[in-house]
C-alpha cells in the first residue's frame, strides 16, 4: 500500500493566508498613503538590469526553474554550484556538441507593470520650497537578452545585451570563463564585464520597484562625492575564483579597471581589487545550507586628467585617490524562512569628497524571504545607511542618512522547464535626510534644508516573465 504524504498542517495554511492578507493590506495602505497627490515629473529608476533567471539553461538541461532558484531569479545552493561550475552540471553533456543543433542559448526577460511613485519635499519651479511629486501608470521595464552557456566543455561565455524601455541599448555583461583549470574546481578564470561575486546578488534578487530594486549598500555615495563606484554595477576586469566540489566553500579575487564598468577606458590606468570568501554549513533541515561570507573592495579614482581645449582626455586619469568597502553577509535558513543580513563599512579618500575629511559611512540590512512553496514567496527588507564622518565637517552629521523598507510577494502560476512567469507585488519606501532618494524619483534635487526627511515610495504590480 502506498504511503500518502499528508499536506502541510492547517497552521501553515493559516500562516500562508495571513501572510497574503497582511501583505495585501500593507499594499492597500501604501496606495492610500501615496495617492491623491499632484502629478509631476518623476525621474526614472536606477536602471539596474537584472541578470536574472535563464530559461535557456532549463531548456538545455530539462530542469524546472526551482531546481536552480529558491524562487527565480534568486539562486539556491544547487544553482550557485551550477554557476560556479561555469553553467555546467558535470554530466559530460555540458558541451554544446551534445545539444540539438537548433538549440540557441538565449533567454529574454521583461516586466510589464503598473507602478506608483511618490516623493516628498521635491523642489520644482512652481514650488521652490518643495512639494510632493507623484506619478503613476502602466509602464515597461527594459529587456535583458541573456545569452549564456558553454562554448566547449569547461569554457563558458556570457553576453547580456540590454534594451531599455526608451530604446537605449547597452551591454550589461560580456565575458569568457575558463573553468576547472587543471581539472580543479578551485581554479577558474573569467575575463570581461561581469557581476562582482556578491553573495547577496543585486542582479538576481527579487525586488523590482524604483525604491526597492537596488541596495543602498551597493550604490550609496555621500553627498558631494566625486566617486562613481557601485558594488551592484557590473565591472570590467579579470576574476580568479574557486570553490569546493559542492560549492560550500567559495572564494574569488578580481582585478578591475577603475571605470565602474564603463567601456572605453574613460578613467585612469590604476586597478581596483576585490575579494570574497564564504563558507556554507549544513546543519538542520532548512531549505538550504547556512552560508556566511566576507568581502572587500579596494579602489582608486583619478582626480586629474590630461586635457585638450579644457576637456579631459579619456584614459589619462592621474592623481589616483583610494576608497574601500568591506563587509560581511550571510544566507541563513530557518525552515522555509531565509534571512539575508549584510553589514558593511565604507570610506572614500578626502579628495573624492566635498571637504578635508575622509567621508566614512556604515550600512546594515536584513532581508527575509518566506518561501511558502516553490511557487510563492513573501519578502521584506529593511536597510539603513548612516554617515559616520562627513567629508565637510560643517555638514550636518545626518546629511545623507537613509532608511529603506520594502515588502512584497512573488507568485509563479506555473513551474516548468521551459520558461517562467511571476506575478510580482511590491511596496518600497525610503527616507533620506537632506538628499534626493537614490532611486532618482522626484525632481532629483536635494531639499534646501539638509535636515529635511525626504520620503519616497514605490508601489509596483507587475508580470515578470522570462522565456
Amino acid at each position, binding site marked *: 500500500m502506498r504511503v*500518502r*504524504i499528508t499536506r502541510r498542517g492547517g497552521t501553515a495554511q493559516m500562516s500562508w493566508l*495571513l501572510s497574503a492578507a497582511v501583505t495585501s493590506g500593507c499594499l492597500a495602505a501604501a496606495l492610500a498613503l501615496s495617492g491623491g497627490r499632484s502629478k509631476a515629473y518623476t525621474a526614472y529608476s536606477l536602471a539596474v538590469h537584472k541578470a536574472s533567471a535563464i530559461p535557456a539553461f532549463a531548456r538545455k538541461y530539462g530542469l524546472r526553474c526551482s531546481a536552480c532558484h529558491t524562487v527565480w531569479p534568486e539562486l539556491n545552493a544547487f544553482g550557485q554550484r551550477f554557476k560556479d561550475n561555469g553553467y555546467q552540471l558535470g*554530466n*559530460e553533456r555540458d558541451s554544446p556538441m551534445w545539444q540539438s543543433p537548433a538549440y540557441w542559448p538565449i533567454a529574454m526577460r521583461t516586466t510589464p507593470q503598473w507602478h506608483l511613485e511618490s516623493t516628498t519635499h521635491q523642489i520644482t519651479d512652481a514650488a521652490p520650497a518643495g512639494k510632493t511629486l507623484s506619478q503613476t501608470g502602466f509602464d515597461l521595464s527594459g529587456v535583458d537578452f541573456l545569452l549564456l552557456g558553454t562554448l566547449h566543455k569547461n569554457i563558458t561565455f556570457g553576453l547580456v545585451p540590454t534594451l531599455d524601455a526608451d530604446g537605449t541599448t547597452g551591454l550589461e555583461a560580456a565575458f569568457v570563463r575558463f573553468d576547472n583549470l587543471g581539472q580543479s574546481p578551485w581554479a577558474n578564470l573569467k575575463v570581461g564585464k561581469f557581476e562582482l561575486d556578491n553573495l547577496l546578488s543585486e542582479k538576481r534578487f527579487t525586488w523590482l520597484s524604483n525604491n526597492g530594486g537596488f541596495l543602498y549598500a551597493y550604490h550609496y555615495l555621500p553627498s558631494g562625492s566625486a566617486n562613481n563606484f557601485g558594488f551592484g554595477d557590473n565591472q570590467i576586469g579579470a576574476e580568479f575564483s574557486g570553490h569546493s566540489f559542492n560549492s560550500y566553500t567559495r572564494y574569488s579575487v578580481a582585478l578591475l579597471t577603475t571605470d565602474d564598468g564603463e567601456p572605453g577606458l574613460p578613467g585612469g590606468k590604476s586597478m581596483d581589487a576585490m575579494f570574497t570568501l564564504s563558507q556554507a554549513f549544513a546543519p538542520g533541515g532548512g531549505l538550504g545550507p547556512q552560508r556566511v561570507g566576507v568581502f572587500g573592495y579596494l579602489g582608486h579614482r583619478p582626480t586629474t586628467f590630461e586635457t585638450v581645449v579644457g576637456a579631459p582626455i579619456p584614459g589619462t586619469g592621474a592623481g589616483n585617490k583610494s576608497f574601500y568597502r568591506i563587509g560581511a553577509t550571510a544566507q541563513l535558513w530557518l525552515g*522555509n524562512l531565509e534571512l539575508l543580513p549584510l553589514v558593511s563599512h565604507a570610506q572614500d579618500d578626502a579628495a573624492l569628497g566635498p571637504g578635508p575629511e575622509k567621508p566614512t559611512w556604515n550600512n546594515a540590512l536584513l532581508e527575509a524571504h518566506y518561501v511558502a512553496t516553490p511557487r510563492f514567496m513573501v519578502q521584506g527588507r529593511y536597510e539603513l545607511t548612516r554617515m559616520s564622518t562627513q567629508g565637510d565637517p560643517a555638514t550636518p552629521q545626518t546629511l545623507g542618512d537613509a532608511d529603506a*523598507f520594502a515588502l512584497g510577494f512573488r507568485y509563479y502560476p506555473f513551474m516548468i*522547464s521551459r520558461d517562467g512567469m511571476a506575478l510580482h507585488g511590491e511596496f518600497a519606501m525610503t527616507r533620506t535626510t537632506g538628499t534626493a532618494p537614490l532611486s532618482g524619483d522626484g525632481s532629483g534635487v536635494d531639499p534646501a534644508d539638509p535636515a529635511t526627511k525626504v520620503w519616497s515610495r514605490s508601489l509596483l504590480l507587475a508580470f515578470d516573465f522570462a522565456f
Partner: protein
Amino acid sequence: MRSHTRWLAVVSGWGVLLCAAGGGAAPARAQESHIGGMTGHAAAAKPLYERYCAGCHGDEGDARGENAQWIDPKPRDFTMAVFKCRSTPTGTLPTDADLFDAVTRGFVTTNMPPWVALTPGNRADLVAYIKTFSPKWKTGHAGTPITIPPEPALSIESMRHGRDLFQKMECWKCHGTSGHGDGPSAATLTDNKDLPIHPYDFSSGSRFMCGVTNRDLYKIFMTGLDGTPMPSFADDIKPADGWDLVHFLRTLQPLDTPEARMWKAWLATHAQELKPIGPPGTGQ
C-alpha cells in the same frame, strides 16, 4: 501620526514573515530513511521533490514528469522500485545509503545531475520520499550489501586474467571487443520498460554510471544494473577474480590510470601474446 503608520507597516511586515516561518513546522511523519546517523523524513520532502525531481520523475514517481518525454535515457520509475546502482545483490532493494549516494552523485551522461549542493538532510528526506512510491518498501527490506574483498596489488597477470574473463563472460557481446559499446548485441538491448538502452562505452572516458572508483566498478558487475540487460556476475566470477576484471576494464578507458600505464607499457613488447577478443573463431 503618519510616522506611526509607517512603523506599523514595518512591524507588521516582519511579523508576517516570522509567523509564517513558525507555521511551517511539524509535518506529518510517514516514511524514513537512515543514512549513517542521519534520519530523513518523507513528509518534509514533498516540496523538495516538487522543486527538484517531479519535472522528470513525475508527481507520482512514475517517470511521467512533463520533461520525461524529452529525456534519453528516461528517468527512473520509482513505482517499480528497481534501481541500477546498489550495493545489494541483484533483485533486492537498495540500501538507503545507495539511494543517497545516487542522489548525491547523479548519473553521468544522463539528465540526472549530482545534487551534492543540497544539504545532506534534504537528500536524506528525498530518499525517504522516493520510498513512498512503491509498496515494496513497506513489504520488503533492503538486501544485505555484498562483501567486497580488499583490492589486490595491480599486476599484469591480474589484467590478463581480467581480459580472459571479459572474453569468457562475453562482455564483448554488448560492450564491444574494444569496450566501445558497439558489440553485436548492442543495438538490440532494451530495459525493463522495453525502451532501447545503450551499453557503456568505456572509451568515452567518462565516469561510470554508479561511481568513479575501482570499488564502484566491482559493485556494478557483481550486483548487476537491475532493470537493464547488465546482469550480476556474482554467481560466475569468484570474488577475488572480480578485481582482475576491474583492472582490465580500466585499461579500456582513455584515462591516465595506473592500470592503463602498466598495460600500455606491457603491450609495447607483448602484444603478440594476446589472442583477439570476440566470438569463437576469432582466435580464442
